C-alpha cells in the first residue's frame, strides 16, 4: 500500500505542466508500453514474458522533475529438464506474476545531463509449485532504490545507475548498470548496457525507433539481453510505447520530456 501512497503527491505535483525547453521536463509526458519476448536458456528451455507498463514524467521546478511508473509483468518459465530425456510427459510451465510501482525525482539540464533517485516497491507471486526462499510462501514483496546519472554529449548519452533491491526478509541484491546510448538520427536510439555486481556478466542491446510517419507518438522497441554465466541466457523482446500529446523526436523526448 505504501508504494501507492508514495505516488499520490508526485502525481499531484505534476498535474500542472508547462512547456519549457530548458527545463528538466519541458512538458508532462505520459507514455504506456507493451513488450513481449522469449528467454532461451542454454539453447533448450524457453520462457516467455510480457510486460505492460506506464510512466508519467512531469516538471516540479525548472531543473527538477519527477516520474511515476508502474508495470505488470507475466513470466511463464519453462521448467523442463534440459536436455529433456524424460518420458513422463509434458512439463507445466511455472508462471510468475509481478507488479511494481516506482516514483523518482531528478535534476536535469537538457544540455548537460541528469541525476536522479527512484524508489519503488513490487511483488512477485508464483503460480506453480514454487516457494520463495525469503518467505517460504508463493509471494515475495520487494522494495528497491536506484540512483542514476546521465551525461549528454552531442548525440551520445552515457548513464550509470546503482540499484539496490531489498527482499522481504532482508536479503538484498545490488547491481550497477553502465549504459551508452547513441542517436544516429534523432528518432533512433541505440543503447548498449552492461550490468555488474549481482547481475554480473549481463549485457543489453536496445533499439528504440520513433517513426515520423506515426506523428512521433509511438516508438518501436527491440531488446536483446544476454547473461554469460554458468548458463547462457538470451532474451529477445519487442514492444512499443505510445506517447500522449508530446509529438517530439526521440532525442528531444529523452532529454527534455522523459
Amino acid at each position: 500500500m505504501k508504494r501507492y501512497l508514495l505516488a499520490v503527491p508526485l502525481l499531484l505535483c505534476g498535474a500542472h505542466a508547462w512547456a519549457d525547453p530548458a527545463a528538466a521536463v519541458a512538458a508532462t509526458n505520459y507514455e504506456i508500453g507493451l513488450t513481449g519476448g522469449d528467454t532461451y536458456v542454454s539453447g533448450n528451455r524457453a520462457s516467455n514474458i510480457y510486460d505492460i507498463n506506464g510512466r508519467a514524467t512531469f516538471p516540479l521546478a525548472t531543473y527538477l522533475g519527477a516520474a511515476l511508473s508502474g508495470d505488470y509483468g507475466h513470466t511463464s518459465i519453462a521448467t523442463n529438464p534440459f536436455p529433456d530425456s524424460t518420458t513422463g510427459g509434458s512439463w507445466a510451465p511455472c508462471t510468475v506474476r509481478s507488479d511494481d510501482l516506482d516514483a523518482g525525482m531528478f535534476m536535469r539540464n537538457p544540455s548537460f545531463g541528469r541525476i536522479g533517485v527512484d524508489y519503488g516497491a513490487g511483488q512477485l507471486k508464483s503460480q506453480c509449485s514454487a516457494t520463495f526462499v525469503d518467505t517460504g510462501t508463493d509471494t515475495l514483496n520487494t522494495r528497491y532504490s536506484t540512483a542514476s546519472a546521465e551525461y549528454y554529449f552531442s548525440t551520445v548519452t552515457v548513464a550509470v545507475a546503482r540499484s539496490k533491491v531489498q527482499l522481504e526478509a532482508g536479503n538484498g541484491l545490488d547491481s550497477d548498470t553502465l549504459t551508452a546510448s547513441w542517436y544516429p538520427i534523432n528518432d533512433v536510439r541505440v543503447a548498449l548496457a552492461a550490468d555488474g555486481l549481482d547481475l554480473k556478466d549481463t549485457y543489453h542491446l536496445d533499439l528504440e525507433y520513433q517513426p515520423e510517419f506515426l506523428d512521433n507518438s509511438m516508438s518501436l522497441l527491440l531488446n536483446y539481453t544476454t547473461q554469460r554465466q554458468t548458463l547462457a541466457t538470451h532474451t529477445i523482446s519487442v514492444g512499443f510505447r505510445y506517447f500522449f500529446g508530446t509529438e517530439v523526436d526521440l532525442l528531444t523526448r529523452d532529454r527534455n520530456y522523459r
Partner: protein
Amino acid sequence: MRRLTVSHCVTAFLFMALLSACSGGNGGSQASTSVSTNTITFSVGSPDATTPPSQAFSATVSAGTIFVAVQHNGTAIANASYTLSGTTVQVVVDPPSPASLGAGNFTGTVTVTGFSCGNPTCSTPAPGNTQIVNVTYQISPIVRFVAPYVATANTAGTVIIRGQGFQQFPVTGVTFGATAATTFTVVSDTEIEASYPALAPGSYAVQIQASGNPGAITSQANLVAVNAPAYSAATIAYPSGTTPQVNELAYDAQRQALLVADTADGKILRYAFNGGTWNSTPVITGLSDLALATDGQHLLALSQTNLYQLIPDNTLASDVTTPAPTFGIAGTVLKNLAVGNDGNAVITTGNPPSTSTGLYVYAACNAININSTCTPAFSQPASAPTLDNATAVGSSDGSLIAIMHGDSTLTSPVSVFQYVAASDTFSATSVTLNQYSTNPVAPALSVFTPANSTTSTTRIVLSGTDANNAAVINVYDGSYNLLGTLPATTLAVVVKPDATRAYTFDSASSQVLSFDLTSTTPASGPLTQVGAVTPLGSPGAGVRMAISPDGGTLFIAGNSQIVVQPAPP
C-alpha cells in the same frame, strides 16, 4: 531525418570500447542448485504388494536464489512435496500404490530449479540450472491363477494362467514345479496359455520367468495333478429324512469329494471318497448354491443374503463371509454363481416370479491373500445386464460363463448372455432362449484346448423355450452356432471336459445317454447318440450331473440319492 555521418560511427565505436571495458562486476550470480542424489528407485514384488515407503532427497540452492520450483512428472510418482529451510530443500517423493499401476517398469522425474533475480528491480525471475532426479519404479508381474487347477496325472494338457504384467516383462519361460511347459503363448497382459507334459501326481507351483525382472516372480497358483479316479458304480444315500432339491452338484477332484447344494433344506452336503466308500461329512445349513473357487482352495457358497468362502475339507469352515450388496428391489436374493479363471465369480440374483435384477461380480480372495491384503467384494461392471432369475454355468478352464434367464410367463425368448473372463466383460450372445422354469435343465459347457495347441473347442448346452415357444435343449459351438439338439426327455446334462460328448440323464429310459459332439457342422436336428448305460440306481427327480476332470466318471444327484457311474463311451 538526418544522415549518418562519420562522426556518428566514430562515436559508436567509442561506445563499444567503453562497454567492453566494463567488467561484469564482482557480486553474485545465477541460482545454482545441487541435489543429494540423482536417482530414486522403488521396487515391489507384485501389484498386490503394499505401497513402498516414500523416499526423500535434499537439494541445496546457492545464495542469491530467490525461489525454488520443484516439479515432477511420470507415472512412478504420485506426489513430490518439499519443505524449504534456508537454502536447503527437502523433497519427499511418494510412489503410487502398486495396485493403481499394475505390473511394469515405470519412470518419473523430479526437477528442482532455483531462480535468481533477472533484472535490477527483481521483477523478473531468472532460472538457474535444473537438477534432475530420475525415479524408477518396478512392479513385478504376478501369477494368480491357473485353470483348470486340477490336471489328470500322466496326461499332457493345456491350462490358462491368469495374472498381471505378462506383457510388461518379456516372458521367457513357464514352469510347473521343475517341469518346463512344452509350449506357452502370452495371450495378453493377464493371460498365458501353457501346455504341460504328463505329470506325476502332486502339486506344482506355476511359475513364469521374465527377462528384465530381477528376483523371483510371485506365484499364487498351483497345478494339482491327480490320478484319474477309478470309482465303481455306487449309490450314496442322503441323510435320513432329507429330500433335497439339488441346485448344484460339484466334484472336488483334488479332495475326491462330492458337494451337493440342497435348496429345499438350505444345506450343503459333502461326501468324500475314502478308498471304497463315500462318507457323509458335516452338513452346512443356510446355503443354496456352490462352486469351487478358481484356485480350488475355497468353496464359494451362496445363501440368499451372504457369500461364504469355505474351507473345502471335511470341516467346511467359513473363512470369509461377505454380505450381499444392497439391492434396489425388495425381495431380491442371491441366486446362483459360477467361477471364472480371473478369480471372479459371477453372481446372479433372483426375485420370482419375474423381475429383472442385477448381475454381480465377486472378486474372491485366494488362499494366499485371504487373510492379508485381500478384501473380497461385490461389484457391478458397466457391462453387467439386469436379468430375470438368471442361472450361470462356467467352463472348467474358467474362460467362459454362460448365463440364461427368463421365466414361464414370458411370451418371447430373451438373449442368453456370457461372461468372458479374459476381458472381464458381459455381453449378449446371438442365442435367444427363455429359461422356462425355476429349476430348468441346468446349462452345461466345456472349453477344451488340447496339449500343445492354441485351438480350443467349445460346446455349450442351453435349455429353454425358443421363438416358437417350444422347449428345446440345444448344443452350440463357441460362436453360438447350433450343432444339434438333445432329447426333450433330458433331465440333466453334462459336457465331457474334452468337449467330445454330452452325457444326459434321460427320464424316458432312466439311463445315462451319450451323444457325439465332435461334429463342427451347424445342424438343427437331433445329435447322434453313441452310448447308453443304466445307472446302479435312480437319482430321483430334480437331477443335476457332474463329471470328473478326466471325463471317466459321472455323478448324478436327484432328490432320492446320488449315483456314481462310470461314463459310457
